[in-house]
């Protein structure tokens, strides 16, 4: 149980060339206000750079944001790179303009949860806490 006392560290990241980061920044503020330690990469990151930051900063979870339609390429790539580095314990969640049909594919590739526009912060926070509790058992 002691590990539960550690403050959750999350990396919010923008893979690819998409510069729409209103959602990423607002979520960063919201998660900070719900008691997590939040880092934001800024726009235009490669999956490699995101994974490197995640390892350096020793985060528990990565939140990927993509509004350009390239999520099916970037999100699985981040999971894959984490596995290659032996860091599969880092949870990956995602958000953005993501069609319903793509969610099963992304889940199957190891993305824990997808949050579309209008998702409640409460549900995002709950999912994060739940998946971390689950992982630490």
């Amino acid at each position, binding site marked *: 149980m002691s590990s539960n006392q550690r403050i959750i560290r999350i990396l919010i990241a923008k893979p690819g*060339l998409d510069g729409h980061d*209103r959602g990423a920044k607002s979520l960063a503020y919201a998660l900070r206000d719900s008691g997590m330690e939040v880092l934001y990469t800024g726009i235009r990151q490669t999956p490699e750079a995101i994974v490197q930051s995640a390892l350096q900063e020793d985060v528990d979870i990565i939140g990927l944001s993509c509004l350009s339609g390239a999520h099916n390429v970037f999100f699985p790539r981040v999971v894959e790179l984490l596995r290659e580095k032996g860091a599969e314990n880092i949870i990956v969640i995602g958000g953005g303009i993501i*069609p319903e049909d793509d969610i099963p594919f992304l889940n199957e590739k190891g993305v824990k949860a997808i949050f579309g526009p209008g998702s409640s912060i409460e549900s995002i926070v709950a999912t994060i806490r739940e998946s971390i509790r689950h992982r630490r058992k």
Partner: protein
Amino acid sequence: MIWFSEREVWHWRNFGENRSSKGGNGAVTNKLKGLEVAQKSWEENRIKAGKEFSTRSGIPVKPVYTPLDLRDWDYQEKLGFPGDYPYTRGITPNMYRDKPWIMGQYAGFATAETSNEWYKYLLSQGATSLSVAWDLPTQIGYDSDHPLAFGEVGKQGVACASLADMETMFDGIPIHKMRISTTANAIGPIFLAWILAIYEKRGLQAQGMQLSIQNDSLKEFFSRGTQIFPPQASVKLSNDCVEYCVRNMLTHFHPLTCSGYHIAEAGATAVQEMAFTLADAEAYIEDLLERGLDIDDFAHYIVAFLGTGIDFFEEICKLRAFRRMWAKMMKEKYGAKKSESMRLFYRGYTHGSYLTAQQPLNNIVRGTLETLAAVLGGIQSNVTSSYDEALSLPSPEAVRVALRTQQIIADESGVTKTVDPLGGSYYVEWLTEELEKRATELLSEVEEMGGAIVAIEEGFFEKEIARSAYETLKQVQSGERVTVGVNKYVVDEPVKIEIRKVDQKEQDRQIEKLRKLKKERENDKVKVSLDRLRRAAEEETNLVPFLIDAVKTYATLGEICDILRRVYGEYKPVRL
């Protein structure tokens, strides 16, 4: 008889003047005093204290507005007539009575071939202009085979690597009969070179063509993120386009579109959108003046692009107030003398950020309200967002509904019968004033810190906007701000709409085309033109003529931008 009555009028006028010079306009003052008493009594006896209301910019809204709210307000000074300074009521005397606004659709995806077919479809449906959307690699100056482009090719718009793609994209389209516009920003000068090369190939005189380039790189740094070069170099490149158009008398071109739309999409309030857009405009204008151009030579080449969101009256008033601020800025700050320099041509677009993924058909209603606000605010051209855009690129059906929304407002609703029908409403005029006042204060703050470039470099714009965006998010989350289908009237049902996706194979096709082009073109000519471009960039001359030469050799976008990246460097953002 006529003489007599004129004299009577003269006497009457003199009488009135004498009276007012003795002690204010007695009758009016008395009436206002009476109203003041009546209103006070009404407020005390009839209004229950309760819920507070405010606009989305946080301006408190009272239960009712009366002449007391426009006490020192002067019709001639604040409104005047449509087509007259300060253009609050519109930039032409007849507005939509002459002709409706230009109805465009923002479109482009996958490859030049698929986009070409799509443009032909839109035109067959009555679109009167085309607005080209580029994919992200194109907007950021990477060819489709660049490692950073992987996964993004053709996704957010059309992939365009060279003049060859442009030729395909516009094949069979009568570009001389319509306004072509585009969201090229950091690549604005390259798009200008492409289109000028196409005109030349088709034997069209550029002077007669209508073209709009967004080309506002400054707003990219804090709202949309497709900047390539540092802010100062970005202003230089954007203004190369303006200067080229001015010096070549391309009078129907809009080579610079100062854009607030994306600033608002990033989360800015209406007041921030107005102030930051004007701050950007000032940065461009001041650089153009330093190039030795006169304000009246170039002011009318610059247009503005503001979005309309869901806060109906605030958005209408925003458009009216901004148009007035623009006119005043040109006249009072920059000393413009020609009326065309003060008249602001508006491009409008309904906001994508108010669209919901939940119950997407509701977005048709949002689009209608926002389009109506744009029309009542007096735009010259408009695009209505499609109802499925919170989910994916718009489908053909959704795009058609968006266009029909505009057509129904223009042809059925009757709102176009008179100019500025809301002018004179106590609330509308008061709110227009209030927005102008607040935006002017915020603009002064930016000017005092050194203007837009400093505000970008110090992260001021970005922080201010992020804070507003987060406030909005909190209000939606708490239910204080209602979004139907998201935090009220929620239904749990799967979304059943047709979604358009871009096939990953399009990327392979595009890369294959690029390889073929690089093999088949005359590569020695490409090299010479790129060397000339590099030297010109180092010498700080206007690059447009050199870009035209380069694109004609089929040098690719990536090759051209790599040269410029080497000369100007790339922008490294501040950490917030």
